[in-house]
């Protein structure tokens, strides 16, 4: 059972790591908007915009 003396502190380290990652994510605003980023994966391609984007006739 001596292996526990290694494994338990290891799990505590992992816990600290997980909490650290969570704090980082919250501070960086990862949870500010939970709706918009979900749309990104629904868009298939990231093709470059057509040249028509440059003309400003829509203004």
């Amino acid at each position, binding site marked *: 059972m001596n292996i526990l003396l290694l494994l338990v502190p290891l799990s505590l380290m992992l816990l600290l790591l997980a909490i650290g990652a969570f704090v980082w994510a919250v501070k960086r605003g990862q949870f500010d*908007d939970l709706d*918009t980023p979900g749309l990104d994966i629904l868009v298939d391609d990231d093709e470059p915009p057509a040249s028509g984007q440059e003309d400003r*006739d*829509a203004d």
Partner: protein
Amino acid sequence: MTATPATIARATRADGAIQVAATDCFHCGEPLPAVPARLRLDGAERAFCCDGCAAAAQWIRDARLDDYYRLRSELATRVSVDQSDIALWDRAEVLDEHARNVPGGRELTLLTDGMRCAACAWLIDRALTREPGVLEVNANAVTGRIRIAWDPARTSLSSPLRRLMALGYRPYLATGEARERARRSERNRWLLRLGVAGLGAMQAMMFAEALYLDTSGSMSHALRDFLRWVTFLVATPVVFYAGWPFLAGCARELRHRSPGMDTLIATSTLLAYFASLVETLRGGPQVWYDAAVMFVFLLLAARMLEQRVRNVATAQVDALARARPAFATREREDGSRELVPLAALMVDDVACIAAGEAVPADGVLLDGEAGFEESLLTGEAHAVHKTAGMPVFAGTVCRERPARMRVTATGSATRLSQLAHLVEQAQAHRPPLAQAADRIASWFVFAMLAVAALTFLGWRAYEPARAFEVALAVLVISCPCALSLSVPAALAAANGALAKLGVLPLRPDALDRLARASDVVFDKTGTLSDGKPWLVEADTFGGMDRVRALRIAAALERDSGHPLAQAFSDVQAEAESASNLIAIAGHGIEGSLGADRWRLGHAPYACGGEDDGALWLGDGRQAFARFVVRERERVDARAALDALRHEGIAVHLCSGDAHAAVDRLATTLGITEANPRQTPEAKLAYVRQLQQQGRRVAMVGDGLNDAPVLAGADVSIAMGEGAALAQRAADLVLASPALIRIPAAIALARDTRRIVRQNFGWALGYNLLALPLAMAGVVSPWMAALGMALSSLVVTLNALRLARGNTTSVESPLLDGAAAEVRA
């Protein structure tokens, strides 16, 4: 957010994307004009209401962002081509005050009004990032805010903002930024607490499990104590960091000598924690760290959900608060103009408002005429025409042409602020029902502490080893959290759902009273008719062909843009357009079709006859046709009344109008209880008479001159123009005159009442059932914590059903039918 009737009536496809009727603009969903702009998009020909919308759609297509149309779950706002005020954003005063310096450029936070769903935020993100000189864009659909960082050396701020406006999103300066930041950091703190509690609770449970599984007691004492100390280590931040809101709440409640929910939570948690610590120190048989951490985690989750519900409800208030501009243009004595901060604007100053700018304060329009868009107050996107001497309100947007006004009220004295304040008050106020729940919870706490103590003493005499454990379980299981949460959670969710419907509750108990309504009395004919003209009769004279007369009239009306044009919109107009049009206000219009000159208007103008209220077509001397045009009932009136009857509500009409008009409307809509020629006193008497019969009366009026009647009813609903919204006489206000929202609001109110009852029943039933079990020692502390917190979660989730609006009666087939009718 205030939604236009169009967005309410829109059918949503199963995948969330919106389907637009062929007669409406593909971009914004407004009705199409006679000659719509057309564009090929998404594999089909689409029609648009105006050049602005078409240009926006074209840009979106060319930029390969047309996925937006598939992703959106709400329609866009109509794109205005007017961008006259955009240069204001480049002024040094604006930038100095609001922009921050960031590496590589400057940063500014904007608010926008048209961001209705996540797809808008997606579109803004993509569109603005492609603008040259823009460093970073972050659009948040939840808060309606856009954070934009740009490089001043490469672009001025106005050029990306011009793109934003071309897409239909009007930028506002983000006021209340500090409040929003405070709210965000508050939310982040809660998230952190929840994360720490969740991760910590999981670990603590794991170690506790190892201890529980040692049923034969074969674990060495050294290992057992090691595991206990590790659990202690993990549980400490959960109890004291994550559980801090409960501890602080407990301290506050004790200071005020009114023990409540937090007292019980904190007592149970601390008792479990410290008892475990004592057991760990002296090597006792049992520890309860797991119960303590699980209690904290699950209750935090429940509270977090409740706060989310609340935040959705306050979004409406934010929309109201955002409309004020940061600067105002003041006219000096000598006629020159200066830009002053809003706070420097005083009563009796003369303020100038450029077209497209928001009105800075309440005031009186000074000269000429102007159009004001009062969408913020009424939810209607169309401009309201005003002439000199009429009141204008802060937060409305000046359209078409610049205006001057004399300021009559500023800052918190404006209608806008009062309205925002009223709504805030109504939402913050705890209604009697919730107060009662709190009071019950308070004496409940005393009773429970006593019961726990008695249980402890009883078990101590019977089986001392388990006495503490059983008493702890009793304390945990009896916590009336679910009881306390049941009402506020449901009300907060209902307020959010109401706001989405465009109904603002102004009185705290409005919802409760609305749920009890058994009769709806419409106070005016005008609440049921839409004020839009409708052709009912057409007679011709002098050899004129009926069809030809209609076509001529339709062509004249179409090309003049006259309000009566709608009456002829079903008629196939002459293909040729009318030329040399002259419109004479109050008389009619004159124009040439081919070689002939026509006049359309009242009889003296069109044919020199006697005015009989009808519309005449003539050449100035001779009459050729006579049209009778009447107002029609609102498109959704029939559906709304049917929905009301379906809910078992009787419909009455009390009107000051003449017999003929009232009878016609009542017959069309099938109202049997119609009373014409009613004075306000007679209306009040009618309401009182109904009340004496034991009916609960909901009164629908415009809230302007019928205050006593509205106040006399059990619950009153005001619908109408912006000014009326600030009337205190009404309990609820319809942000835009869409009748279908009345049955929807009543259905929602009834759902709310049902859910509050369910929650009450559940919470009480759970406590009554679980308490004897806990006292009998059947339930261990961790099971108690789980059961307790689960019951809190259940009531909160139950309340959240209201916010989603997918309770059965809101989506009744009748309402869907109404939506179809509005579309058609």
